[in-house]
């Protein structure tokens, strides 16, 4: 339901692209309005930073504008935009600042990873108390932060596959198109990503 195919808005992506290729700013703005939420949410989950996600999302649309002339309808607009976003992420990680995941072992226990976490003995095992109403909102926020932290510990390739599938709700086939990888690779990345997350989030799993 969150796939890029399910759009029934007034203008089709195809007509918007055609107009955008003729330098129609309204069409460009409509594409931005249509996709910025999805792209931003993906980039937020990938980077864990609102600032970086916003910066990269803007760059996605600048690149889209720059390259719209070479867009061929072999892939959907959504696929193309997510591919740009993914590539920008890889570049950003390569530039060095964002990627702590690669230096961390997936087998590391949920606690005691990395020097920057400092004394984090209490970080892991306290399960939020859902019964106390005033604390519920805080607990929910807290849980969201734990999930995000766990995501950021995944290697980027696994993280991207899991976010696209389990957060953005994309089908394996769409992810294969975005990442330009075989279907089997998509499935194994999602599997490995989920298994790693399961280990990180074990205290929060309600079985």
């Amino acid at each position, binding site marked *: 339901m969150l796939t890029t195919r399910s759009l029934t808005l007034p203008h089709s992506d195809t007509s918007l692209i055609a107009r955008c290729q003729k330098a129609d700013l309204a069409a460009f703005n409509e594409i931005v309005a249509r996709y910025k939420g999805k792209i*931003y949410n993906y980039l937020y989950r990938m980077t864990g930073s609102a600032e970086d996600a916003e910066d990269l999302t803007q760059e996605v649309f600048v690149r889209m504008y720059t390259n719209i002339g070479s867009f061929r309808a072999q892939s959907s607009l959504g696929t193309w935009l997510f591919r740009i976003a993914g590539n920008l992420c890889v570049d950003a990680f390569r530039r060095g600042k964002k990627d702590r995941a690669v230096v961390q072992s997936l087998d590391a226990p949920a606690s005691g990873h990395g020097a920057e976490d400092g004394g984090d003995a209490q970080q892991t095992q306290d399960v939020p108390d859902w019964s106390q109403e005033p604390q519920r909102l805080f607990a929910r926020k807290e849980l969201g932060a734990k999930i995000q932290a766990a995501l950021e510990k995944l290697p980027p390739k696994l993280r991207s596959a899991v976010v696209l599938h389990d957060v953005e709700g994309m089908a394996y086939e769409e992810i294969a198109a975005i990442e330009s990888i075989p279907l089997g690779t998509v499935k194994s990345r999602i599997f490995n990503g989920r298994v790693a997350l399961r280990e990180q989030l074990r205290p929060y799993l309600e079985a």
Partner: protein
Amino acid sequence: MASIIDCKKIQPLLSEYVDGTLAGDSAWGVKLHLSSCAVCARAAEELSATVSLLRSLPREETSDAFSEALARRLADQVLKPARPDLGERVREWWSLPRVRPALAAAGALAALAPAALFFSARQPAAPVTEPPAVASAGDQQQFLDEVLEEHASYASGEPLGDPTAAVLLVSSPGGEGSTARGDRP
């Protein structure tokens, strides 16, 4: 009873199994195994719970300043270098050999125009320079008008080509008070 070998075959399928995307017979095989293997059944439950956690994440949204910042960035990074600004275009226009002498003359005369008008007001019997001077000032104004008009129509006909138009068009629905960077959880 399920064997360890079965478990090793089953576990890689659990991710797809919890997605409900396994083909019929594979799904049936996994289901059968899970009914007799507590270890794999628990693994499947935990994977499913992990997916539920991921799906429970709130959707994050761009700040209110997003559209305006994007328009500015588009203008700065993409549009500006491709289009010479008005000043450059005026200088280009001036450098065209066929117009320069005429305009230089008109410009020189236009500089005298206020004086000429002053004299003409006081002295009805005007010197010979008066009519061309007034006409020349008009010519120069007309020239600037034309350039400005051309720029404006250029911009409206091709809005993406004009940085200012881009900013105006993109930022118009946001209204004011949109400079704050939205509160984030």
